[in-house]
């Protein structure tokens, strides 16, 4: 059973890595992140150069904050904004099954639906983690360039490492929602549209303002609640709540995807 699962995971990883659109979308996301980072570098470096003797920084005009947490939060929020695109990547990974009826071939090779869905999810999570690590790496390099003349130690502080691991957790869990929604809808485009809709719920802040308790149940809101600082953003729940919401979304959607895979004819 375990060896069959490992074999299936390996096959799923090969499917991911030998798909051209995987590389195209991954490349676009990383290139965009690099571009934004480079564009931010000059202003951030200037802000670091102007850190006051009592270690306050003005990253955004008129907002003076203690430099160390402010710089770390800024680095994490740089990574966070790239997460908007991760579900699209996940949808592309999942959607390949519905091109040229590849799913039929997958089911012939791994007919036990439970094994297949777990293998697919594990492989996708592993790849998404890799991309998230690259995103975190770019953000870190960017911040290192900005703070190297001041105190690079800010990047290895407990606060920074905790923030990075929270980011990685969120990035993978949130993207897996896009993955599962695509498996459910059997269309890449619908998977993307569904996650864009989920994104809009959080970004428009309509619920955050009117019914924060409901807003906190949405995955991207949970990501914001987990990662961002209450001084910079309107948060609607605590971190523990956010983590539970973030775990429930991919668990529930993946379970539905598995159930449907088990019950529907393969198309």
């Amino acid at each position: 059973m375990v060896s069959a699962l490992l074999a299936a995971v390996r096959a799923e990883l090969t499917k991911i890595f030998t798909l051209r659109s995987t590389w195209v979308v991954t490349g676009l996301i990383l290139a965009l992140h690099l571009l934004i980072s480079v564009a931010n570098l000059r202003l951030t470096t200037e802000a670091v150069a102007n850190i006051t003797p009592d270690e306050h920084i003005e990253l955004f005009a008129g907002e003076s904050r203690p430099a160390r947490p402010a710089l770390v939060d800024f680095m994490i929020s740089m990574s966070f904004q790239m997460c908007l695109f991760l579900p699209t990547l996940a949808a592309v990974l999942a959607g390949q099954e519905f091109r040229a009826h590849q799913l039929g071939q997958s089911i012939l090779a791994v007919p036990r639906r439970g094994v297949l869905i777990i293998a697919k999810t594990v492989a996708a999570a592993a790849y998404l983690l890799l991309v998230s690590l690259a995103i975190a790496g770019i953000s870190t390099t960017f911040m290192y360039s900005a703070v190297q003349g001041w105190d690079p130690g800010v990047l290895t502080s407990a606060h920074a490492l905790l923030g990075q691991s929270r980011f990685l957790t969120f990035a993978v869990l949130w993207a897996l929602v896009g993955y599962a929604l695509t498996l459910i809808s059997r269309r890449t485009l619908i998977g993307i549209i569904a996650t864009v809709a989920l994104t809009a719920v959080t970004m428009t802040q309509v619920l955050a303002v009117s019914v924060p308790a409901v807003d906190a149940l949405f995955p991207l809101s949970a990501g914001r609640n987990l990662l961002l600082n209450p001084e910079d953003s309107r948060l609607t729940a605590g971190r523990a709540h956010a983590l539970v919401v973030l775990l429930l979304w991919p668990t529930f959607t993946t379970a539905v995807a598995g159930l449907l895979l088990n019950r529907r004819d393969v198309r």
Partner: protein
Amino acid sequence: MIEVAHLTKHYGGRAAVDDISFTVPRGRVTGFLGPNGAGKSTTLRILLGLDRPDAGTALIDGKPYRDLRYPLHTVGALLDGPGSVPERRAVDHLTWIAQSNRIPRRRVHEVLDLVGLGGVAKQQVKKFSLGMGQRLGLAGALLGDPEILVLDEPINGLDPEGIRWVRTFLRGFAARGRTVLLSSHLMTEMADTADEVVVIARGRIAAHGRLDQITAGHPSLEHVFFALTGDQGPEW
């Protein structure tokens, strides 16, 4: 051995297959014959665990396909439909299939050579002709060196040389004591390839037996087919 018993499948109230039963013996080529829309693909998809029957069972060596561990070592299948993502290279397509069933990588190159695609292994599948795609599908079916082959209209899209190659290959495959079940709506192909035939029409079994017994007393298999299925379809 393949055993199909009382298999029934409806699509929107209409029966695509209606209480069909037959067995496919070992060491033979069994043709699954019927006009377009007769229910061949539906039957084979249920046999291979892709679709769910409304009633009945389809077993391979006494088990549903779903319960086979590393099924490609037991059954190789070529279906109408399942294929490779167009931008994937042929070798990559076969590699993931092989990995899923713990088939060694060297076997990928063996089957590519076997079906005559060794020279285009690194090409994207979208550059393949219909016949090459069909050969790639066959290569996938052969990966696990299976005891049983289930092929849905494998001749479709092949050129005359490809057809001859498939026929010779299947005869040799069965001669080594292995089992082949292949569907077709083409009479002429069956006459040269199959030992046994199962004839299906409108979702029901119209005849089942040795090819020579079924054709006895008729001028040709084509006449038998007309008589059994009432099919005058110009498509074949």
